[in-house]
């Protein structure tokens, strides 16, 4: 299957010019650090501390109050502009997800700074906030509200969502009666309804059966193509090659290649 055939083409120049005209998205990290305090760990000098230091990705230390601290990101400098497609590589625990969350605005850096122009949309946890006891329709409004869609706008889109997800009459049924694939299809259809300005992804999304995947890949490819800035964390260098025009590598919270 031509996995990302739609995005192989570089972003068309005309489109880029058009977008630049409307808004300039950018992400600027200056020496950003993220230290997680671990409150329920005993002193940092125990045996556990040494064992954990060997086992985890982030470096450990302690902060001025004597709490154990995991340094998830250290001194990250990054300057992303309109049209950048950044691939983030690195082993487990390197800080990829943390970086994505810093960019999404979940974690404010504990040191350094971040400046983001533009609205960040994260396609990481597609079914976040969905409720298995609620019907498909209710979930559309619930999930849609979390994505920042207004109720009125959503109600004009319900049909389109149901159509795209291929849910049919099941839309009136509680989500728990759906198969896992159906749930994911619905979640995907809601999440990709609007064109994001800055898109953050953890691995390339693959959703549903063969038939749906083709549709989904096409829509995702379209979105990725039109988005101003893409940041995608992945373990797959070929994906980076296909989708991205920039790449960084993280290891133990430190940027090792730019």
């Amino acid at each position, binding site marked *: 299957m031509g996995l990302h055939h739609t995005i192989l083409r570089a972003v068309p120049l005309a489109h880029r010019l058009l977008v630049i005209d409307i808004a300039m998205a950018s992400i600027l990290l200056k020496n950003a650090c993220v230290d*997680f*305090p671990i*409150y329920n760990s005993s002193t940092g000098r125990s045996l556990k501390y040494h064992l954990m230091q060997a086992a985890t990705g982030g470096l450990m230390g302690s902060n001025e109050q004597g709490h154990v601290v995991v340094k998830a990101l250290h001194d990250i400098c990054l300057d992303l502009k309109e049209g950048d497609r950044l691939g983030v590589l690195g082993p487990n625990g390197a800080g990829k997800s943390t970086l994505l*969350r810093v960019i*999404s*605005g*979940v*974690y*404010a850096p*504990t040191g350094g700074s971040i400046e983001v122009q533009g609205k*960040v949309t*994260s396609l*990481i*946890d597609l079914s*976040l*906030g969905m*409720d298995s*006891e*609620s019907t498909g329709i*209710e979930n559309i*409004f*619930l999930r849609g*509200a*979390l994505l*920042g869609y*207004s*109720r009125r706008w959503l109600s004009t889109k319900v049909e389109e969502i149901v159509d795209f997800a291929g849910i049919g009459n099941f839309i009136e049924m509680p989500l728990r009666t759906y198969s896992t694939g159906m749930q994911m299809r619905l979640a995907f259809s809601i999440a990709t309804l609007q064109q994001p300005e800055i898109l953050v992804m953890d691995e390339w999304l693959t959703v549903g059966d063969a038939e749906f995947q083709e549709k989904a890949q096409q829509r995702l490819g379209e979105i990725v193509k039109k988005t101003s800035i893409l940041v995608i964390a992945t373990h797959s260098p070929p994906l980076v090659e296909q989708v991205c025009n920039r790449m960084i590598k993280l290891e133990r919270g430190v940027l090792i290649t730019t």
Partner: protein
Amino acid sequence: MQRSNMFKLFKTGWRDIFTALKSYELAGVLGWQDIRQRYRRSSLGPFWLTISMGVLIGALGLVFGNLFNSPMKEFLPFLTIGLILWTLISTALNEGCTGFTAAEAMIKQISLPLFTHILRVLWRNLIIFIHNLIIYPLVLIVFWVSLPATASLAIVGLVLLMINLSWMALLLGVFCARFRDVPLIVANLLQVFFYLTPIIWMPQVLPKRANMLLLTANPFFHMIEIVRAPLLGTLPSALNWQVGILMAMAGWVFTILFYGRFRSRIAYWL
């Protein structure tokens, strides 16, 4: 230097709160969802709370009305409103404590104004309050009393009460995200205040000297009185209003500064 720093904290705190208020629709959807989730597949839904509240009021009314020798016609409306208001206050504050910790998955995944999670708690409890409020006209009908002319003033009182509960819930939410023992302390204190505050006993039964401690110095008394008094046909005292308004202003200023300082730490504490 000091002053500009304070100003920055205030701005940071206020920006989050303002964005949350602007996207009130989200808090509304989440709050309704909580109610729906809790009562899904039960045929009466949140009215079960109303029923159990009604039963509780009946039982307490019987015991304490007789105990304090208060005329039922006065005592029962007093008890009804007091208990319904106290339920709103205590659950809003108790659930405010877990407002952020309960939303951990959401907070760690997407960037929303964090005050939204507190608004959700407040909205959910306001919905339950409105369900419970149905008991009040029923009590009026039972004793064949008409709605007092002052009743509309209770709406102003309720708004002020909610404004006060908002900063309290937010402050507690931040605090409890960091210190996980606090919710337990708060639950305990609220239980104590339930007995200290005139809810199941009328202020008239107090000896004069106890007034100062249990009424004047008790913030919950003022918070309840500004809503309860108009519904019982009297006006809240000037002191009730003053304390209520002063608490709202001072509480919010402090909370916004505090929130501005610690807002960005909340995600780390969860």
